């Protein structure tokens, strides 16, 4: 699959090659003094040719110079995008290796092409471009998509691990390499301590998020997830701060006489830079949240405000030599909560997608540049240095992981197991960050820069490919005790049930954390921050309006699919059932198993499943909608019947597919009050077209089955005299009929009824309004039901 994709690249590359070859020929023919940078100057060719008759207008001109840089950059990005498409088309591949591997490969390919054609690559990467344009989007995306609640719950451990881990790694690797360099045999005597330390700091810039996608199915626990995420987030900032500091040191003290005062000053500076950056970020975050409060009428600029303020925080921090990365991270984290509530739905989506796009473009460019550097002549291979670098990277990471976690486990309520620590150790994959820092080492200060770059490349390739590919199986091996591949259908069903059950009970338990701090912050937040930063008169039905939109679309889809699937229904199957349960053949079992696996609902993931390169697809929303509709209908039915959730003898109802529960015996009389409340709602509301249409279509498919079950149903209903819903049903039946007919003719806008509900309930979570809406929905839903029942005699003629 991926190979096919690569084949299609060849037209592009042929074009590039042709142009390149032609231009190189042209330039080699002409005098090279005309162009000092050895780039192509087809213009010169034309100029030379037409230098005698210089009034002639050339009919066909070629000016590659003008567009070279943007053209090639665009081609690279396009190439990477096509490769990603191919990568995802082959479904098993994303689970096997992280996407960064793919990007590295694409980069290497582009590098090979450029090397092969002797084409000079455009100068995409130099220090200012990297730090000003390529790095901020990557960091912003990491900060924005971080789940805040788990982050702050584990913030102590995360800070302890990220900060100290980075420091230990950097200093440890640097010092060990320095001692290696002292050994005369390796020929590294001219690499002094500072350079080694600098190398250590840049090589310890890990990018573990890249591997998260690989072991997502193993459903690692939330704390582990957060540790990896938090480390990725803070690690970039810390290594860049260290890097800049050490470069400053190198510039100042070329003769290695560093006094203790300088070291102390360095430490103090480290802390100030870090904290100052964070402070800047928070301030800018609040400012931008405040501004989004006023953008109701011009929602098109909301994404712009978000991006501009984040970028501004970065630049402002950089002006004062504070850590811009930490600033932009803090800005994103602070801003996210309030901005998400203020901005419109479309702006929210735009922000998310745009952020992903920008960061993905940046990272692609860096990886391609890395590929270009790989395939080139500017390498210096020193066996000792490279092997020891690799070894020390692993050793020091292991040391830092196990030591730091051992200490932090003493203070944690839920300590990390050895398995978790192994996973954290193994996820130390280096990525674009370390390459960039290595590439941007100033050659004047680092005469052996090429060796550093080579060593960095080797480490990146090794960790990204070998660790990236094997971490999936490792996690699965550590996690699963018995891999019973061929599970019986029973087991599969029950396992899924238990997963759902567990997720549900976890939701009942809620999130446990350090209550005091969190509660205090929540109180402060409610009392002051939200008043200032969140829009006034935000209709509670912003959640409701989102729900509306989902509902409408879903209902329409369901109608359409309902109509299609009813044609597949067949009667004879019923006769078979009556004879007895027939034994199913193994092929049937297989197909049943497949149906089950592919169609069962996924368990709700409590943590935001973060994928660095992609936004979550919409399947879980669709699933949530289906479940919600089902629940509504049940609630609706139960309200009408006068009891909460029916138990007992199941009866054949039309819309079994849409009910969570069967019908059953009444509960205690306490339910009657509830029924009374809702009966008013029932009669007042004319109807909800969409849901009903879907019900009608479903009825079509189920009608034959239920035809014979109608009669027992009616008798059952007659038997239930215990509730007052009896009278309600009679009166409402006529209304429902009328309502339905009206509705069937004229589908009205779906949600006018809901608007009234919008203001009800003032719970902070806002979910109460959702439940109200649901009960409102269930009120509407009943129309459809009764309609069906009354129409069943007509349909029975089939």
């Amino acid at each position, binding site marked *: 699959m991926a190979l096919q994709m690569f084949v299609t690249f060849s037209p592009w590359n042929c074009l590039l090659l042709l142009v390149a070859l032609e231009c190189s020929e042209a330039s080699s023919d002409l005098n090279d003094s005309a162009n000092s940078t050895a780039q192509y100057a087809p213009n010169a060719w034309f100029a030379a040719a037409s230098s005698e008759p210089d009034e002639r207008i050339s009919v066909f001109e070629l000016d590659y110079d003008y567009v070279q840089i943007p053209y090639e950059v665009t081609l690279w990005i396009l190439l990477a995008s096509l490769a990603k498409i191919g990568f995802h088309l082959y479904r098993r591949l994303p689970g096997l290796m992280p996407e960064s591997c793919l990007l590295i490969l694409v980069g290497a390919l582009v590098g090979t092409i450029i090397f092969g054609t002797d084409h000079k690559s455009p100068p995409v990467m130099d220090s200012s471009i990297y730090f000003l344009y390529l790095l901020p989007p990557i960091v912003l995306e990491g900060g924005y998509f971080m789940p805040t609640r788990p982050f702050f719950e584990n913030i102590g451990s995360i800070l302890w691990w990220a900060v100290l881990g980075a420091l230990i790694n950097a200093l440890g690797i640097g010092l060990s390499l320095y001692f290696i360099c002292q050994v005369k045999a390796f020929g590294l005597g001219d690499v002094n301590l500072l350079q080694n330390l600098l190398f250590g700091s840049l090589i310890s810039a890990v990018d573990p998020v890249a591997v998260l996608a690989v072991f997502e199915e193993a459903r690692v626990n939330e704390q582990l997830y957060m540790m990896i995420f938090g480390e990725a987030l803070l690690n970039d900032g810390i290594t860049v701060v260290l890097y800049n500091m050490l470069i400053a040191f190198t510039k100042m003290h070329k003769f290695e006489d560093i006094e203790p005062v300088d070291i102390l000053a360095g430490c103090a500076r480290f802390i100030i830079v870090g904290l100052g950056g964070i402070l800047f970020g928070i301030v800018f975050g609040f400012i931008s949240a405040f501004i989004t409060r006023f953008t109701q009428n011009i929602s098109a600029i909301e994404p712009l405000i978000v991006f501009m303020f984040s970028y501004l925080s970065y630049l402002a921090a950089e002006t004062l030599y504070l850590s811009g990365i930490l600033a932009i991270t803090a800005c994103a984290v602070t801003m996210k909560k309030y901005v998400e509530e203020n901005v419109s739905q479309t702006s929210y989506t735009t922000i998310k997608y745009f952020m992903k796009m920008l960061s993905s473009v940046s990272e692609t460019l860096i990886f391609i540049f890395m590929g270009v550097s790989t395939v080139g002549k500017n390498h210096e291979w020193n066996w000792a240095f490279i092997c020891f670098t690799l070894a020390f990277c692993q050793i020091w990471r292991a040391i830092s992981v196990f030591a730091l976690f051992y200490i932090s486990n003493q203070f944690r309520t839920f300590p990390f197991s050895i398995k978790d620590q192994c996973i954290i150790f193994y996820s130390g994959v280096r990525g674009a960050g370390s390459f960039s820092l290595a590439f941007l080492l100033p050659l004047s200060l680092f005469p052996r820069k090429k060796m550093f770059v080579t060593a960095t490349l080797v480490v990146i390739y090794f960790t990204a490919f070998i660790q990236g590919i094997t971490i999936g199986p490792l996690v699965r091996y550590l996690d699963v005790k018995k891999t019973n591949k061929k599970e019986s259908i029973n087991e599969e069903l029950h396992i899924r049930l238990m*997963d759902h059950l567990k997720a549900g009970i976890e939701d009942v338990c809620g999130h446990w954390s350090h209550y005091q701090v969190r509660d205090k912050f929540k109180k402060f937040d409610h009392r002051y921050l939200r008043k200032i930063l969140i829009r006034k008169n935000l209709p509670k039905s912003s959640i409701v309006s989102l729900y509306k939109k989902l509902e409408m679309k879903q209902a329409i889809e369901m109608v359409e699919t309902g109509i299609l699937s009813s044609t597949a229904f067949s009667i004879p199957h019923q006769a078979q059932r009556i004879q007895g349960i027939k034994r199913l053949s193994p092929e*049937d079992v297989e197909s049943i198993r497949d149906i089950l696996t592919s169609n069962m*609902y996924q368990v709700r993931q409590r943590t935001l499943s973060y994928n660095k390169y992609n936004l979550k697809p919409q399947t879980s929303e669709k699933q949530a909608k289906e479940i919600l509709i089902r629940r509504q209908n049940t609630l609706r039915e139960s309200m009408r019947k006068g009891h909460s959730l029916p*138990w007992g003898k199941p009866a054949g109802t039309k819309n079994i597919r849409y009910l*969570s529960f069967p019908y059953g015996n009444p509960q205690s009389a306490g339910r009657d009050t509830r029924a009374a409340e809702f009966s008013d709602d029932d009669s007042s509301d004319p109807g909800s077209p969409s849901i009903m249409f879907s019900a009608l279509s479903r009825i079509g498919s189920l009608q034959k089955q239920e035809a014979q079950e109608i009669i027992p149903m009616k008798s059952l209903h007659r038997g239930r005299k215990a509730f007052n819903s009896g009278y309600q049903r009679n009166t409402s039946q006529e209304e429902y009929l009328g309502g339905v007919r009206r509705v069937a003719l004229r589908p009205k806008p779906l949600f006018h009824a809901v608007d009234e509900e919008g203001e009800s309930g003032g719970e902070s979570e806002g979910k109460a309004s959702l439940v109200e809406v649901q009960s409102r929905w269930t009120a509407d839903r009943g129309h459809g039901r009764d309609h069906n029942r009354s129409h069943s005699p007509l349909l029975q003629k089939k």
Partner: protein
Amino acid sequence: MGSRSSHAVIPDADSIRRETGFSQASLLRLHHRFRALDRNKKGYLSRMDLQQIGALAVNPLGDRIIESFFPDGSQQVDFPGFVRVLAHFRPVEDEDTETQDPKKPEPLNSRRNKLHYAFQLYDLDRDGKISRHEMLQVLRLMVGVEVTEEQLENIADRTVQEADEDGDGAVSFVEFTKSLEKMDVEQKMSIRILK
């Protein structure tokens, strides 16, 4: 945990602890959660309170889970009842199995009790058996709408068939347990934070 006045004393804390096996810290947290869910400060939870948990609304088994908190048709659940249900999900530790006093009743988080809890989610009419119909209902809940009714019935048939040993067309608790003997129920139905 602090000396805040809002940490009310839990009534019968000792008996609850003995029955469920929770630690004092976990019990305090659960009490805090109970009070957070009990919006009108009634002292007990009704179905509405549990339905306010938004995440349960999108859980296919949400309604059944809520219902399991109200055994025997009651309308309210007090704190001991709340904790009793959650005790099923306490992780099984080695000390539980070691100090097994044969005279004491089985702890709530034993494998058998966990399975019994799951069994009750299926067996709505509490007749001790999962009939084919009940299996079909659970299947309907857990599967998307693309699967046709016919396929679902096949699956339900097959499921009951596999587990049913005495041929009565329904799955009793013993048969249910047997069909899951290879599964690590203790780990699947344990929530780490409920120590």
